[in-house]
């Protein structure tokens, strides 16, 4: 131990003393733990990988994974110009539906049955508020005028393709429904979307070259696709699964492929930086082995690896290298730096993002494990390997420059204030990388990400449908401002109370008599009254009521079943929002005052967007407070804590300013990166303040080991092909550089401004300082540098 650069002056509880006392025991336990972890990782079930991209969405707002969409397309080389290609799609869809059985669900109602229902109950489906207008339209003169106008429009060559259906509605009474209660609409309604509904309830694109089906199954996407593909290929059709479930599966595969490259690139970068800093390969290998064992522990005992967690693990390795600083005798105590970095993500436990809530703790634990390994296991291993890293040399005296600190702070804060309104918002419902099939679904049919759900509950299917009918009418008020359509069978039925009031109102209009007059007027003007027979009969017949039970027992029952869950006790209404994500979805209340809750990725994203700027401030403030508290506890100097807080904020705002020319977006995915940049600046600042306060030398090696290791983690993410990882990596890489600069140039200057004047005499100042305690390097390799404090 004579060659040890660490003086044997540790306190009663010392990690260093522990490592020096039991190196063999520690190394043995560590190796045993590695064997166990490797056995677990390489054995069965092995590394658990989750492709969950919706981790930032609250669980209730996540899109269901058991309702994938199936896109059928025609290969370009199989298109036959001499025949109806859409027939092949229909045939393939029919064969797939037959194969899947109950696992296939219709996207829309059967067209003929829906038309028959609407015709039979056209007047009942008009709200009571429209009955005055209805009465006016059924007046003799008004009906005569309507027939004349119909005749006038018939002379137009485009009338036949205008969408008007005189046989079903010669008096244009549906206008009244639109004016009072939004449009009665469903998927496949040609007025709403560029697709049409097939007789089977699937959607066919207008160019006839793509067909969309809906499935309801928990089957593994890969196996399901193989099963479907076997049928589709027989018809010369390509089948692609779209939705959160299949996307999760793709992400799983991609993550497995990326993880080895991510690990090798990251470790190569760390090895390079650590080698430059330590100038000895054995400590570097020991550090890397410790990091790998920590990583293995996190993978085994932590949650499944997902696309949001993988970059966090890379960052953890990069930021964890701070714990190896003591090998150069720059940070012999280490706990303040570990505390600042470990608590950096704790404010995210207040956030609504489940994955970040989880990581706020997981980061703390992971960093603690890494620091422990680097401070106990690595020294023990180095003792056994008879390798003692050389201490830092050639430090310099850091002179606080107050004007420069103020200038840099003002510039960074102004830059941040300038940048925040200019940075585009990256919403939490944005997919990582959209597949061609998902894009085609969005363009040719509808955007599944904009579909949100409202749940209606009842005692049985009829009761539930009745509740859904009430809710559907509330939801219809969102059309057309906030939503494009309300997809619910509840729009087709009426609750008994409403039904009775409508019936009473309609009875007073003497509809049978009115329809007879209409028939006479049509005949008098040269029309064939029989051509309007469905309308005339349906309007006159008030005995056929659109009750929930009638709908469930009728030909629409199978379609309605697709909306029911929990044995008919829950009905899911789907609301298709407009793509404008800037406005929050208004709150809706039911008749009995209860909240009508809309849930879905788009709702969560809009809600998140509304409050993101405020919450960003809260998270940053929380991180600054926790970090400054750690600095204050270690230094007992308020000025140093405040100065480090300013440096931290300057680094964060500086990163925001640089993100604008980088073309980056700001959103919840970047929150951990921003907070870690702040923590890194806090640590660098504390180290610089310590050097100034104690009039000690400042070592570039410290910047190299902490800042560059963090930057390497960022660059590793930047080298991947995942856009979200790239964004996180860019922020961390740039932020690590800025953090070192802010710590070096801003913190000491600001500390002077905040009141800390003369350098404290080092030998007498026993107050615990910041994590950065660079001792004077020994003149000769064997000399012991003075170390004022020891591990606590």
């Amino acid at each position, binding site marked *: 131990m004579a060659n040890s650069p660490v003086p044997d002056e540790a306190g009663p509880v010392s990690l260093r003393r522990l490592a020096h006392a039991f190196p063999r025991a520690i190394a043995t336990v560590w190796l045993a733990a590695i064997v166990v972890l490797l056995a677990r990782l390489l054995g069965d079930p092995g590394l658990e990988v989750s492709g969950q991209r919706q981790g930032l969405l609250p669980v209730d707002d996540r899109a269901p994974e058991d309702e994938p969409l199936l896109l059928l397309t025609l290969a370009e080389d199989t298109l036959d110009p001499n025949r*109806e290609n859409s027939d092949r799609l229909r045939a393939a869809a029919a064969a797939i539906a037959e194969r899947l059985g109950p696992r296939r669900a219709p996207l829309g109602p059967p067209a003929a049955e829906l038309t028959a229902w609407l015709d039979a109950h056209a007047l009942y489906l008009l709200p009571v508020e429209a009955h005055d207008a209805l009465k006016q339209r059924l007046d003799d003169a008004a009906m005569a005028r309507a027939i004349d106008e119909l005749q006038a429009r018939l002379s137009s060559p*485009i009338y*036949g*393709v*205008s*969408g*008007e259906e005189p*046989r079903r509605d010669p008096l244009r009474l549906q206008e009244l429904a639109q004016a009072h209660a939004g449009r009665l609409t469903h998927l496949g309604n*040609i007025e709403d979307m560029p697709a049409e509904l097939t007789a089977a309830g699937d959607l066919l694109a207008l160019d006839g070259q793509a067909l969309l089906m809906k499935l309801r199954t928990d089957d593994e996407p890969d196996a399901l696709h193989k099963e479907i593909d076997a049928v589709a290929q027989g018809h010369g059709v390509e089948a692609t699964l779209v939705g959160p479930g299949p996307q999760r599966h793709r992400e799983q595969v991609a993550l497995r492929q990326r993880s080895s490259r991510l690990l090798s690139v990251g470790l190569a970068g760390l090895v390079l930086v650590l080698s430059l800093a330590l100038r000895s390969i054995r400590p570097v290998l020991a550090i890397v082995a410790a990091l790998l064992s920590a990583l293995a522990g996190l993978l085994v005992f932590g949650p499944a690896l997902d696309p949001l967690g993988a970059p966090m693990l890379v960052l953890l390795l990069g930021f964890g290298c701070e714990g190896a600083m003591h090998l150069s005798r720059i940070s012999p105590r280490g706990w303040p730096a570990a505390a600042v970095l470990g608590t950096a993500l704790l404010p995210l436990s207040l956030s609504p993002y489940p994955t970040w809530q989880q990581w706020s703790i997981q980061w703390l634990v992971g960093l603690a494990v890494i620091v422990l390994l680097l401070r106990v296991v690595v020294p023990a291993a180095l003792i056994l390997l008879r390798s003692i890293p050389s201490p830092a040399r050639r430090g310099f005296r850091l002179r606080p420059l107050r004007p420069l600190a103020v200038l840099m702070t003002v510039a960074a804060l102004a830059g941040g204030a300038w940048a925040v309104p200019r940075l585009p918002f990256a919403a939490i419902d944005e997919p990582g990388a959209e597949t061609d099939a998902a894009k085609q679904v969005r363009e040719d049919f509808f955007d599944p990400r904009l579909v949100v759900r409202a749940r209606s509950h009842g005692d049985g299917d009829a009761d539930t449908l009745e509740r859904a009918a009430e809710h559907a009418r509330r939801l219809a008020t969102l059309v057309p401002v906030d939503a494009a359509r309300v997809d619910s069978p509840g729009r087709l039925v009426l609750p008994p109370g409403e039904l009775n009031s409508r019936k009473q109102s309609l009875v007073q209009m003497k509809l049978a008599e009115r329809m007879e007059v209409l028939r006479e007027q049509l005949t008098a003007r040269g029309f*064939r009254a029989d051509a309007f027979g469905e309308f005339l009969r349906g309007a006159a017949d008030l005995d056929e009521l659109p009750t929930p039970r009638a709908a469930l027992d009728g030909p629409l029952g199978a379609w309605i079943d697709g909306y029911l869950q929990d044995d008919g006790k829950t009905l899911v209404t789907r609301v298709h929002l407009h793509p404008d994500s800037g406005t929050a979805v208004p709150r809706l209340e039911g008749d009995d005052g209860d909240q009508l809750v809309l849930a879905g990725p788009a709702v969560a994203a809009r809600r998140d967007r509304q409050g993101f700027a405020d919450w960003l401030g809260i998270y940053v403030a929380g991180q600054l407070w926790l970090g400054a508290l750690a600095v204050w506890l270690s230094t007992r100097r308020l000025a140093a804590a405040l100065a480090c807080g300013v440096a931290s904020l300057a680094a964060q705002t500086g990163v925001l300013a640089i993100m604008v020319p980088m073309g980056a977006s700001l959103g919840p995915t970047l929150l951990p990166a921003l907070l870690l940049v702040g923590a890194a600046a806090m640590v660098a600042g504390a180290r610089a303040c310590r050097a100034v306060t104690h009039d000690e030398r400042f070592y570039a090696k410290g910047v190299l080991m902490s800042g560059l290791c963090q930057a390497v983690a960022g660059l590793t993410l930047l080298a991947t092909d995942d856009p979200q990882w790239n964004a996180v990596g860019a922020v961390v890489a740039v932020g690590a550089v800025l953090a070192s600069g802010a710590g070096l140039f801003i913190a000491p200057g600001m500390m002077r401004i905040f009141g800390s004047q003369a350098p404290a005499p080092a030998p007498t100042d026993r107050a615990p300082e910041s994590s950065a305690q660079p001792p004077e390097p020994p003149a000769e390799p064997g000399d012991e540098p003075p170390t004022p404090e020891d591990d606590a």
Partner: protein
Amino acid sequence: MIGRRPLLLGLSALALPRIALAGPSAQERKLANRLELWGNYARRTRNLMARLGTRRETSLLEEPLLSTGTLVFRAPDLLVLREDGRQGSTTLIDGASIRLFLNGAGQHDPAAIDADQRPAARWLAQRLVRLFAPGDGTALLEETRPNVPKGRGYRLELLPPRGSTTRRQIRSLGVQFDPVAGSITQITIAEAQGDRVVMSLSDTRQNLPDEDIDAFLAQLDP
């Protein structure tokens, strides 16, 4: 469905005499002949006004519906079909806008029908406009399957492409040309439901003074 690019390439090939020498089919020769006849007249059109007689055969009525009116075209893409009298209706196609309104109510009547979003209406409106717009026929035949019907007269039939949902509403758009001038004398729209609209054009005047067209358009708002 025929892809747009192969279709256009094929049709433009018809217009090339060099290729024609290679031996196009009788159908292709007839099509090129119709297009040449039509193009000779249409390429001079800045504006056009004609008397319009419309006959709709529909199962809604006991007898075919007959009406008279005026057709006005102004390059590049304004077409108005206006029935005579305040009780009649007007069809206004202005670029991407397709509007059907009653003469007495005017084009800004909230009860007017906007058909811009309907693919079949868009297809038909574009074909109607391009029938009168100057061009070499490429735009006219875009997204169609042309056919020269058998029988007497210079006729051309434009069918919606296979696989298109327009086919579910429109069976064909037939055009008859004046054999000498090349102007359009009749347009026939066969709807998929069975209705048939025949528009007869007479007294066609090409390139009128702009004031005459402006004066007609000013009537659209009562």
